[in-house]
């Protein structure tokens, strides 16, 4: 299998605060990896490093065999990214966003975007300012998947959604995200999300990344035994810290 993403020996600190310490990660095609960790564990920082949106103190990142810091545009053209909160212009509607993103992604497909809008049932002509959090998350997910990216990166995209909306979005993602020859990396602190999506699970604690288990969990029936052992029968939300 081809490697979609490879990171080795990543260090990142903000001043005296070490956020990531010797983090290494590989993601092969057709894999969906879940990155678990409490709030503030450094998941967003790691994702931004992998996308080339942050510069590591040390270490190396390769996405599709390219350095995202040097070939940022080329790399990001093949990545669908959903941030933990929408950072879009408030006046933009979903249609405005699609119009704006279309020239930036050579593989953008309008039909696909509109089909996602229909499937997720979000309004196309309502500004982000007037959208609910769930609707805004749906728009962001649809916009991230519309260009058929080779790598999908979700940063807490399912957090703080109401249960029905989260279920709808999860189902949509499971249905649409597995891409031929692509991969997905999902950061969450929600064990349920991990159980539903993960082929591989990584745990980020105190700046160190460890792979929890290599048991395939895509059937959604269980979470890794080690997690159960570590967190017992606590509700998944307990990880929210």
């Amino acid at each position, binding site marked *: 299998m081809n490697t979609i993403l490879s990171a080795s020996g990543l260090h990142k600190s903000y001043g005296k605060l070490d956020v990531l310490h010797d983090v290494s990660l590989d993601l092969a095609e057709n894999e969906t990896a879940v990155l678990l960790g409490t709030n503030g564990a450094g998941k967003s920082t790691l994702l931004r490093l992998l996308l080339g949106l942050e510069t590591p103190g040390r270490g190396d990142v390769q996405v599709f065999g390219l350095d995202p810091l040097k070939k*940022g*545009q080329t790399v990001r053209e093949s990545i669908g990214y959903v941030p933990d909160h929408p*950072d879009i212009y408030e006046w933009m509607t979903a249609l*405005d966003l699609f119009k704006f993103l279309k*020239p930036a992604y050579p593989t953008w497909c309008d039909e696909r975007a509109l089909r996602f809008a229909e499937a997720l049932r979000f309004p196309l002509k309502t500004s982000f300012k007037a959208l609910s959090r769930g609707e805004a998350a749906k728009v962001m997910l649809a916009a991230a998947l519309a260009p058929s990216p080779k790598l999908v990166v979700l940063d807490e995209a399912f957090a703080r959604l109401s249960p029905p909306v989260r279920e709808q979005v999860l189902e949509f993602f499971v249905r649409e995200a597995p891409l031929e020859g692509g991969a997905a990396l999902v950061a969450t602190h929600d064990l349920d999300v991990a159980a539903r999506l993960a082929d591989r699970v990584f745990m980020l604690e105190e700046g160190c990344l460890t792979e929890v288990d290599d048991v395939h969990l895509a059937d959604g029936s269980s979470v890794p035994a080690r997690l159960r052992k570590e967190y017992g029968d606590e509700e998944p939300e307990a990880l929210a810290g």
Partner: protein
Amino acid sequence: MKPLQVHLWREWREHRRSLYFLAASLTLVVLALSRQFSVNVVSDPAFLGWTSLLVLATVVVSIGSDLFASEKQRGTDAFLTRVPGGLAGAFAAKLLFFWLLTASAGAFGLALGGAAHLSRTGNLPDSVLDGVSPSMILLGAVALLWVFTISIWVKSGTLTVPATALFLSAVASPVVWILLIPGHVISSGTVSFFLELAACGALAGAWVSFVRGGRKNHTYRRATLQGLAVACLCLSPTWAWAGRRYIVMQVTEMKVSWIHLGEGQRYAFLTIAKAPIFGSRKTKRALQEPTAVLLDMESGEWSVKGEFGQSMWIDSYRPPNGDRTYSEDRGRPFIELSSLDSQASGDSRERVLYDGVTGQPLELDAETRFEQFAKGRPWPPIFDQGGEKGMTTHAGAGYRRNWWNPSRHMFWDPATDRSSDMSEARDQDLRPLNSRVLVGPGRWLAKPKAGHWMWFDPETNETEVADCLEQRDLLGPSFDDGSLFLVRAHTPYRLDTVSGELQQIAIHGTLHEGMVMQSFGGMNNAPLPSNGRSAMHCRTVPSGEPLRQYEGIAVLDALENTIHVLDLVGYGVRVQGDGFALVQEELSLHQGRVYFLENPGRLLRLDMETLETRVVFDLDDMELLEAE
């Protein structure tokens, strides 16, 4: 749509409501204000410029200054960063949007001014941006470009304009500092070059801070500092130039700073001094030390009046109307003796007056000769140079105060010895005159600042625009056949003022392609001989050297229709007066000879027939004396 187009569309969508609001409110404001002003004010050509400036400033302050800061404040810069090509596209679109915005605002302001003009007078204005030179537009454009750049460097849009003002003051201060030195000159080519550098610096700094800083994930502080460093790198040649000028002036040797040629050209009164420039108190004192010298032009003998280097200088007092200094009532030269202590305290000064013809001291009464006056006491009337005075004129429904310099509006006809005042002309505002030329009996050409050349009849006080001339034409004196010497786009011509026919004058003796006329030797306002030669001080424009000009003495041969450039020195490096200068133009042409000064200290005599020059005085001899 292409990336640039969608970014541009995004900017438009983001600001369109503010633009609609500004357009509506500014329309109301300008039209309401125009009702408050008199018709004269609204119909003044400057009114269009002010409305344009008002709209432009409002739009820049409210929208243009916040283009980048608003992205940071809302966090949308992160969105632009992660969109492929988002930063470069956003940068290009913002730059384009900014220029479209400012250009449209300026045009809209003009349109509003025109509408106000139409509503008050029933007519559209005759001209738009009358008197606004391309260099002013370039200067404004560069300043706007810096507003754009500094909006990236500040965190809040409200800080952009003040920060730009502070920054531009700081970066321009070395050059302005040099330019403020009296007598300093800088060529327009140099100014354009510096403005282009400033524009490049602004663009490069903006690109480095926003696009490169975003791509490299630099912090706000680091991106700003890197952009600032790149901008400063682009500006550094300007500072290097200013520094070099300063050093050149600091080490300037003694030079002839002033010459007064006595009537009959037998005696000349020279002030020898080092350049009076800034520095420490000690340095300033050391550098000044003017020395008064009386020179016999025939024998070349000279004598120092007073002690060498003890702050004595020669000046001439003149009657208030500077136009008439050449005639019988021309002031006589005097030597002012003063000590350094008296300069500082202003307590006392001693004046010794010399007769310009005989070179002998004048017998003066004690009161004039040793006049004692306390600091702050008015100068005696004999030293009054006239100058400006306040004048209140009726302008429509209101009053306005103008500063009126009589000498700038006075016309004196040497043939009739009659004077007239153009400020009394009908339909003529009181803008100071840049220049005036007597073309024939009762035929004057005058050019107000920011205006066209116009005919002026002192008898009837009537003015009429001179169609045969362009606004930027430089006019020399007229010839005695009524034709006129003019320089248009660095090319000298002879203009038949009746038919409007132009005849190009060939430049000989130089490889340079054009010229800038400085002055002619001969009587002020007196016509040039149409069948003889005239000396002129000119600057020449070399081909292939945009930053260089040369100046020198040339002889205009009206019969051959040629200009012979005799000698040239580089121009634009040294301060004004360091190069060539015709000595006292109104007196220099005498008995077919003309004197000119080639600083730092050579006085030369040019024979107009043979075109031979002879050194009359050389400052090197003085320096030998000083060494002894």
